[in-house]
């Protein structure tokens, strides 16, 4: 999770929809409109590394001023929409998380941090538990013959990056153990 964490950096590049609270001249390049201003209430998609800060920094240098709106509002992205949440709730295990977002958990956790979203945390908790059982089943069922090219099939393709890492780590551990058990 540190400064040099490649996956964290990549996840931060995910674009989130946001709405500007002010018209700002010269920022049109953010929506591919170089030279023009960004209009108040314009809805554009910005990478999280940019949007996150603009969503919490007030427009007013004077910190005392109560009515200082942040530069923009973050809007709920598709990956956290009610539709996706319902899909998670109805069947977390068979869900293709990778197609929703390859850094789903990292982003969802960041979102939960930003908005103190307890409901989201609850859903994530169930999701992690249920899906990790499945990951463990796959990681543990290593046939020693097909060690070179173990084929977890379609399943691996539905995992997000952190789940893939979990799978890889568990898989290597199970494999080393099996090799140790059968040696000589």
């Amino acid at each position: 999770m540190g400064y040099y964490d490649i996956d964290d950096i990549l996840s931060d590049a995910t674009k989130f929809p946001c709405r500007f609270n002010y018209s700002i001249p010269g920022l049109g390049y953010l929506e591919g409109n170089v030279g023009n201003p960004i209009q108040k209430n314009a809805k554009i998609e910005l990478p999280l590394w940019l949007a996150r800060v603009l969503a919490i920094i007030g427009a007013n240098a004077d910190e005392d001023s109560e009515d200082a709106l942040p530069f923009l509002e973050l809007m709920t992205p598709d990956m956290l929409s009610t539709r996706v949440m319902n899909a998670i709730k109805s069947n977390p295990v068979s869900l293709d998380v990778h197609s929703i977002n390859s850094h789903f958990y990292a982003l969802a956790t960041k979102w939960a941090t930003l908005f103190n979203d307890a409901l989201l945390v609850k859903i994530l908790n169930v999701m992690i538990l249920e899906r990790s059982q499945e990951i463990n089943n796959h990681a543990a069922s290593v046939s020693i013959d097909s060690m070179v090219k173990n084929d977890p099939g379609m399943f691996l393709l539905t995992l997000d990056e952190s789940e893939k890492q979990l799978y890889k780590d568990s898989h290597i551990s199970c494999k080393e153990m099996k090799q140790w058990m059968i040696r000589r």
Partner: protein
Amino acid sequence: MSLPPNLQQSFSPEEIQFIVENEPIKIFSRITTRPSVRQRNSSQNSARWKLVTADDEPLNNLVAMQTTEVALWVALLLKQQGKCSIVAPSWLTARQLQKYTDYERKHPERFSDLPWNWLVVAQLLFIKAADDLHDPVHVLRGIVQDLREIRLSKISQGLKQLNESHLQLDNLSLLEINELRPFILGVMNKLKQVHSSLTTDQDDEDVF
């Protein structure tokens, strides 16, 4: 990096074996190294054993046909040279292992209190001292395999209880723990991370 990635988060099974090999085990010596009274009185020092990781006292006082206790790795080396037989631990018999298996089956929520090094000791003796065991090695192997499978399936049942707080894993052996370590730590750390994203108070601006 000065440590390969696979050793950064966990031990290898070989390292667990290494740790277990330092534990003592009983052997039945076939050689005598204990100096006779005359030798002891003379100052001559005939190639005595001097070790830096294990107790060398018993090795300098081996008496043929007597039992003594040495580190497991020493026992295996002597055995390889035909200088001793290994006294199998009392739990490593078909009868005793069957009792453990029965217990495991009867108590789906618990693990039998097998020694913390049972799997390593069993495997090592199967390979290197099969003729010292009380029962045919294929019989013992079979029961050990059963035990391992029953316990594994119990563990995976238990993994449904993973949480962001803590976990108690009594009676699991070091090797069994090590196999599951990456998974358990991966899931629990992730759960913890998700849960700690909720701050009860918002005065912490450094979060971003």
